[in-house]
């Protein structure tokens, strides 16, 4: 003999299903760019490498003035 689940049981199953999606990383909250970034170590390491590269590049090239675009005044010093 089967019985219909109560409202509480239905609610419990729904919350458990949502928590399971969260556990597996399939929840909508993780599908945003920031959500994926927060959970992906490869992305975080790539970003850290890029930041380090930009900083290194700044240190290397900080004495090389860029040419002024045509029609602009050249740098004063």
């Amino acid at each position, binding site marked *: 003999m089967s019985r219909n689940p109560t409202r509480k049981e239905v609610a419990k199953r729904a919350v458990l299903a*949502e928590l399971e999606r969260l556990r597996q990383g399939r929840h909508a909250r993780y599908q945003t760019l920031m959500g994926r970034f927060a*959970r992906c170590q490869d992305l975080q390491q790539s970003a850290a490498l890029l930041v380090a590269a930009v900083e290194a590049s700044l240190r290397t090239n900080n004495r090389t003035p860029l040419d002024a675009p045509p029609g602009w005044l050249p740098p004063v010093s």
Partner: protein
Amino acid sequence: MAQGSGLVLPRFGTVPVVHRLVADDRLAVMLAKTLLELDIAVPGDWQRAERDPTSFIRLTLEQWIQTHGGSAIRRRFLLSAVISNSPSDWAERDETKPNQLFLIVEPSEATCGCAIFGPTLALLESIHPQLPATFFHLFVGALNTWIRIYDFRDAEERAETLREWAAQEPDGAEYELPDVAGSVPPCMRQAVLENSDLAHVNDRINDSTAKKLVDAEISLDGVSRGVERPELGDDVGEQLSDCNPPLPCLLAVFADGDAIAGCFDEEAQGMMEVEPEPNIIMPFDPTDTASIQRTFHMFGVACQTIAAASRVIDLMPGNDQWIISR
């Protein structure tokens, strides 16, 4: 953005105004799921928690405390309970145990409750000479299982330290030291009654207040024995090695402003100099259902013990002014 004939302002109506990002809520998700499976958490709290596992766990903890005597606890104690991945604010997380969490209880705002025993002991002494000491030691023993009580023994220890310091000073004899022994009623020197003798004495009590007090005390003792509090492992002990002793949650004195209260006030000045150890630390594994069930059961017993102690203090004459929350 659509072009119009006049000035157009961007609309943010559909843009979420709150963003919450949790870098790693894996343990919180697992704990929330198991709490719900065990019926410790209730599904209705998921919406109240705005579908956030950490808030859901916090609400579950609040609800668990409430169903285990929360209102009675709040009358006499100011405590906070949290679940953390470290046993204290200062302790570093044990990276060898990535799945370890701690249920922690400590006094909030460094506030201590107070209970005055003098009038109660006088009432009980009129019934049986050993009843006062039995009552006091049963009460303090039951509570000390879970939280720290500052009583005459702590004060005696403090007074002894002060005596030793004074003895090293050239004018040591001029120091006025607290007379803790003089604050302890003589009836406290009596031996404690055995359980069977206490039950026998209790059966013969005619005074209604004394009867209620002893009944509540026996109930408190029974509740506190509901579960055995396990010892913390060496690994946790090591994490807490730089901490001060736990802050007392209750000051047990015999009279308002006696030498015990004086020692406590003086000693309290230094209790926060170093981070104190929490009163209750229950390590558990959120990936292990049995571990969660055991921990919440134990926490429930701790709450029921503190609530039972609060009800005993409610019955003790002369304690109306120490109610923290009505």
